[in-house]
């Protein structure tokens, strides 16, 4: 069977159910790179230009992992736009496949399937027909596979909204699970009940906050400190889209809209005590969006705000100290508010 390698980085964290289902439906075997670890990081850092963001470096590491596994194809789509009106992802996401090809040429990478996705000008199916053609799959089958894949993706989105904690989402993402394969939609998870816990919102790119290495397991750490964590993925899309404009009016980056929308929503939510914005150095969009969120957060004096910017040199101990101090401060404020 033809094997398709998908790096477990960047947009994998958003679209993996779609991608896996699609390829399995057209009769391929999907291979996902292993979870981010030190080796993947080192490989990535060594083979990527220094000035590039950490998620892209990690992505290179994951690709190397797949090349070592000997897959027949790599799947790295060029994601220019994912909305029906004019909008963009990040410039780097458009160029990754070319950059990967040229920086890893010495390793003899397999053929890279890199369809162009720009949904405000071309319907999504065109991109997947391109893939089908490269793999010699008939049009019918591609269309059916995509329809099914979109359905599964929809279920994944739904699951994220209903998940009682981002921990559950992270677990789904970090085991190579087929749970979102068509026959195997997970049962709806009931809310565990979180009364009395302090709620903190965590916003940032999904491939930052859910990657155990980049995020240094932030979600788990907060949870173990007795905090209830909420992320942007857990909010309905409409809410995000209604909210981002209060921070930046002209926003054409889809994923940044989501982050801004989530940040603004949580800042206004009375139940939330603090907001953490996690990003990486050399991330282009973050340099703008981070500043905008910071300014918005200042308007909400009742909420504590923490901006965490990490890269491959960031020490875990330092981050831990800052998080502990942040949580302590919230707890203290909370105590004062309750008069003890």
């Amino acid at each position, binding site marked *: 069977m033809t094997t398709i390698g998908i790096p477990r980085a960047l947009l994998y964290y958003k679209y993996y159910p779609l991608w896996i289902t699609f390829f399995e439906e057209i009769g391929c075997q999907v291979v996902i790179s292993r979870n981010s670890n030190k080796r993947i990081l080192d490989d990535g850092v060594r083979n990527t230009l220094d*000035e*590039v963001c950490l998620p892209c470096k990690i992505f290179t590491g994951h690709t190397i992992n797949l090349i070592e596994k000997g897959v027949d194809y790599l799947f790295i789509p060029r994601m220019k736009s994912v909305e029906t009106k004019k909008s963009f992802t990040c410039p780097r996401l458009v*160029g990754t496949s070319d950059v990967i090809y040229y920086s890893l040429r010495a390793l003899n990478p397999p053929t890279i399937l890199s369809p162009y996705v720009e949904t405000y000008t071309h319907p999504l199916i065109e991109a997947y027909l391109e893939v089908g053609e490269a793999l010699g799959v008939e049009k019918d089958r591609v269309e059916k596979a995509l329809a099914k894949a979109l359905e599964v993706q929809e279920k994944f989105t739904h699951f994220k909204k209903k998940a009682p904690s981002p921990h559950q989402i992270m677990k789904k993402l970090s085991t190579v699970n087929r749970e979102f394969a068509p026959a195997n939609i997970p049962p709806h998870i009931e809310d565990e009940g979180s009364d009395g816990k302090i709620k903190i919102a965590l916003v940032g790119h999904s491939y930052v906050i859910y990657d155990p290495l980049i995020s240094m397991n932030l979600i788990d750490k907060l949870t173990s400190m007795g905090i209830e964590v909420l992320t942007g993925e857990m909010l309905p899309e409409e809410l995000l889209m209604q909210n981002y404009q209060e921070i930046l009016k002209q926003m054409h980056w889809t994923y940044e809209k989501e982050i801004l929308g989530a940040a603004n929503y949580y800042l206004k939510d009375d139940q939330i005590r603090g907001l953490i914005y996690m990003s990486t150095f050399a991330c282009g969009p973050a340099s703008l969006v981070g500043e905008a969120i910071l300014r918005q957060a200042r308007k909400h004096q009742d909420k504590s705000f923490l901006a965490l910017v990490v890269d491959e040199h960031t020490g875990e101990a330092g981050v831990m100290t800052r998080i502990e101090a942040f949580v302590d401060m919230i707890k203290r404020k909370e105590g004062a508010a309750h008069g003890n």
Partner: protein
Amino acid sequence: MEIKVSFPHMGNSYIAFRGLVAALGCTPVIPDRPNSKTVKEGSKVSPEAICFPFKINMGDFLNAFEKGTQVLVMVTGVGPCRFGYYGELQEKILRSMGYDFEIYIINQNSIVDIIKRLREMLGHKGFYRKFWRALRTLVNKSKTAHMIERMARETRCYEVNKGETTKVMNQCLQLVDQAKTFREMKRARKKAIRMFREIQVDKTRNPIKVAILGEIYVVVESSINFSIEELLGDMGVFVFQPSGLYEWLKHLVRLDFTAKKAVTLAKPYLKYTTGAKDQYTIGYTIKCSQEGYDGVIHLYPFTCMPQTMARTILDTVSRDYNIPVLNISLDEHSGEAGFLTRVEAFIDLLERRRVQRMQKASLLEARAI
């Protein structure tokens, strides 16, 4: 009432913008040419990780306020890069610092709105005539400035009296800047051509030829790139540099044919543009190699997204087309000494390569005899 309008610097574009503002009947206020103070103060009020041009813009704005500006103009894109959001964030920051001003953020989406606002501000009477005149001035002046810059690049390496070209260039640019009517602009253009012709040159030289490519702002803004064009010209290097305001205007109306050709050349390496002019960088590198250039200097702001990608791919292009590329990223911490050393070493390398190539060629010739 006098309306003072200001805009950030980008190379010599101030000449065309000054003309535009004046033609609209407002008073143009030109910030000082970006200098260490601009960079320092601009960086202080900007997000630390933002790309360099943003910070210099901020420095320009602060300087413009010192000069009593009430209205700012900022041209941005609606593209996928950070540039598209410069204006809005800059406005936010400046307002939070307590400045009171009006800002016109110009991009493809806002243009109709901008015209309406301008009409309100300047009065309806005869507005469209004034506006049309302003646009013509913009195009006319930027075109002449572009021509003068190109002549300077291509003359400097042949000049006999050191420094003459730069002097003439500055005089010519000043003429264009001062021209008020279209007739004066035309006269300035003619005079410039004449003045350049009078520069004494030694065309027997066979100079090293270098292209300067990369992110438009740092390529064009000489105060930030340590006047690289003059620096190279004074070393006797022939310089090609395709970007600038005029080229950008041509790009807006889709008349930039050479650039389009470059994009075609770049496609095998970078199929789709990621945002800004990354395909230009790659395409022009190929084109220059085919046209016998000796090397390429690739300039971009530190962490610039499209250009860092272009850089990774350029490594391969450079090998495939056998043309050396020097990559330099610039930010507020860049020092002149380090910059100079790298550029000089690069030109040395190009000279040595040329000598080697010539030796090889004459060896082959000798064998043939």
